[in-house]
């Protein structure tokens, strides 16, 4: 599903390059549950952003489901990630001004899904995550765990093939964190490919494969 070859990304500071990613080679099959581990600043988030096509490396090739991502135009690229990738953030990044329902609905708006269909999809999702009763609340009225549930529901609404989660449990207590991980496991069983960045060994253990990063490189 994903092939990264010789991916490097750097910033130039005082004439010398500081690498954010250095010669990353990685292959991920559909249906895998990958955990990326490593200390802060090792490049986990940058790698996720590159995979999520939010960021571009300075060097290297990226093949996503048979397409050379960096050879595509901006528009085509955003069309791919719109329909295939869902994002989950450590800080949830819900839109404060929108209700739970509206937050979950937002990605569908950008994919021109019809209103009746949107209604059905959001209702399914609310049901699935057991948050029907909270659909009219605003993010500030929810606990952290509940907010992250909404964040995941939002990531899943457009039925992506791949979920990218950057420290999804970083702001949660351990019980809430466990619930989220269980949820990821369940989603993975249903066939969704998941890549998560995490600090926690325990969380990494939910995955089928763990990649360790240090100083912008993948440790083999």
């Amino acid at each position, binding site marked *: 599903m994903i092939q990264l070859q010789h991916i490097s990304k750097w910033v130039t500071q005082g004439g010398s390059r500081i690498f954010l990613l250095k010669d990353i080679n990685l292959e991920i099959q559909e249906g895998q549950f990958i955990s990326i581990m490593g200390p802060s600043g090792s490049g986990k988030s940058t790698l996720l952003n590159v995979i999520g096509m939010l*960021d571009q490396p300075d060097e290297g090739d990226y093949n996503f489901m048979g397409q050379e991502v960096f050879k595509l135009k901006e528009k085509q690229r955003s069309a791919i990630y*719109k329909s295939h990738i869902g994002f989950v*953030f*450590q*800080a949830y990044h819900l839109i404060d001004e929108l209700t739970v329902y509206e937050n979950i609905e937002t990605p569908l708006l*950008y994919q021109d899904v019809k209103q009746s269909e949107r209604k059905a999809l959001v209702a399914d999702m609310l049901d699935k995550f057991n948050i029907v009763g909270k659909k009219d609340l605003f993010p500030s009225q929810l606990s952290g765990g509940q907010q992250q549930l909404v964040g995941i529901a939002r990531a899943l609404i457009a039925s992506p093939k791949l979920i990218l989660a950057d420290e999804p449990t970083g702001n949660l207590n351990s019980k809430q964190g466990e619930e989220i991980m269980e949820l990821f496991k369940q989603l993975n069983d249903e066939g969704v490919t998941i890549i998560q960045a995490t600090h926690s060994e325990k969380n990494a253990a939910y995955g089928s494969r763990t990649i360790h990063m240090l100083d912008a490189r993948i440790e083999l």
Partner: protein
Amino acid sequence: MRNIISVRTMSDGRASQIIHHTFIMLKNYFKIAFRNLLKHKGYAAINITGLAIGIASCLLLFLVVRYEMSYDKTQPNYKNLYHVVTQNKYADRTNYTSGIPNPALEALRLQMPNTKFTALNSLYGAQVSVVNNSGGADKKFIEDSGMFFCEPTFFELFSYTWLNGSPAALKEPNTVVLTKKYAEKYFGNWKDAVNKMLLMDNFVPLKVTAILDDVPANTDFPLGALVSYETVKKYGDHYNFNATEWGTTSSNYQIFALLPASMTQAEGDRQLLEFSKKNYTGRNDKSEKINFLQPLKDVHFDKRFETFGDHVTERSTLLTLSLIGLFIIIMACINFINLSTAQAVGRSKEIGMRKVLGSSRKQLFLQVMGETGLIVLIAGILAIIIAMLCLPYIKHIVSIQENLSLFNAQTLVFGLLTGAVVTLFAGLYPSLILSGFKPIMALKNRITSAKVGGISLRRGLVVTQFVISQVLIVGTIVAVMQMNFVHNADLGFNKEAVLLMSTNADSSVIQQYGAFREKLLQTPGVVNVSFNADEPSSDNNWSSNFAFDHKDDEPYPVSLKFADENYFKTFGLEFIAGRPFEKSDSVREIVINETLLKKLNLKKPEDALSKDIRIGGAPWKKIVGVVKDFKTNSLRDAINPILIIQNSNFYGKTAIKISSSNLAQTQSAIENTWNSFYPSYAYKTAFMDTKINDFYKQENQLSLLYKIFAALAVFISSLGLFGLVSFMAVQKTKEVGIRKVLGASERNIVYLFSKEFTVLILISFVIAAPLAWYMMNGWLQNFQYRIQLGAGVFLIAILISIMIAWITVGYKAIKAAVANPVKSLRTE
């Protein structure tokens, strides 16, 4: 503040300590205020620019309104002085005029012995020649205004400074009193002027008997040269003065009254009504004529009555000016309130910290107010500079020729007051909001714009701004369209390339007209020449009662145009029936216009031909032609019924139709011809189209005023909008990032930003449209001929507002939309 107030009850040492302490606090506030300004340069610039423009507009408009309100206020008898005016009631309308019949003066004095009356008779367009030792004329002037026939009693009512002599100087005929300015114009030095000789209209010798100090510019009595009243009695035939003729009034002849302190205006009016009944009844049964009093304080503001000044300003115009000033400053204050509350979130930490450190709410309130004050102060200084730079141009939007000065006590007080009110109005709400923050919430950064509230307030204020700017935009469009309509209107005659010369129609001039015309026609470029009393469209209105087809007098008057047989060709008037009259020395044939035809209930133009018509009590004449209607006045008024008649005695004007090539050459040839025929007469010309343009001076000024202030309003609201959007862009950085990650395109993001403002514009349009319609429809009622106020105007206005808003919002929105979401969502 409390500290300072309580000082009185304390001992001196403690008091000085507190004052010292207060001073340190103030210094601290100022420092913070100043640094805050520097830190938020963009917002500060927007606030200061907007407020400076607002305050400058207010100052300038205040100067104008104050000037217009000051007319003749320096007259010591201001409160008891009245203008005796006339109301003429016809079956179908009521006419008003300042004119009074000549014999009324003596009759009034007999009837109302306790009231002082005086007559002032203006001499528009008189020629004054300075006589030299050999009896010839050195210098010739045509005085368009400033010359009057005046009684010595005038100075019992009105007060002026005499540099030399006294009112007694006007007792004898052939005497004249000059103001300093006029004396200097004629003789170089006013001190040499007394006992020098002038020649008026080439036949009235005048001896200068006294000198007056110059009158101020803000007067409707622009005295320049005052010829004794005895002179007009002596030369009555030439100056249309007849002390027994009750039937004629001219607005050049006006009467003023000084009521005794014990008499009210109502009592004066009652006595005038009695006077009118006694003197006018039975003289003309077609109208009911009465005289009444117009207080001097209304003279400058009432358009119904002619004054001797160069313009009358309606109070509604002054109200419009004041409102515009108010609007502009409100808009600037709104910008301030909006930006300050929007910024409040960012300042919550500072406020929280100050509260934790022991600042009271009152102190914080004063701090924020102080910052507002500082901004207003800077804006005020800038405003004075702007106002000073703009002052010389103000005469283009109002009829003030005098140079106004910004620096006088009244304006200073007004400026300070404006500053104080603006500070209070703009600063109050932000101060209350900021000082009300709960310290813990503020420190925890838990204060969001939603919690600060004021989002709906901010929307309301933005709507207010849009309403104001849209009303002004509609006003501008309507005023510009109407003025375009006026300038391009078909007047029914050809106004292009017609040169008008004013002449004093005395017999020696008229005798030479035939030869003069022949000579002019030989000049290359001259197409036609007509002698007449009045051009087709003019402010003059010479009217008379008349009878048609040997019936009784018709119940309405007819306007008279005296002209020769070449009038029709020179001005390109079209006939719908009959022909021009033939050249004749006496009045035999008459031409009428379409309006008169309709008023006489004649079906076909041909029906009027060969019928007889009679003016006043004169013999019957034959109608030989009917001309297609042309605009007899400005487009403000309906077309009058008109008679065109020959009478060479009244031909004070020469109209010369010239071909438009070699204009300058043709003009100088005409001048040479004039000087060779009439060496003792001053040469003065104007083009017909320029004269017509002058009809609409005030409307043109208003239209310009709208243009300027609509532009300012749009500018200020755009400034505010830009500030708000920049702020929104900062606030929404995260949201934009999330949306982009969720798949929003750049277009989606730009739409997100413009949507809200577009909705606000639409809401304000709903409020602005009826307001603007009401306002401009009222203004259009001033014109008999006007544009239709259709939906198009409003459509253009809203399109303009939306476009400007989009352009303003667009830059920031696009910048926000293309930003990389990875940056805005980074958590570590």
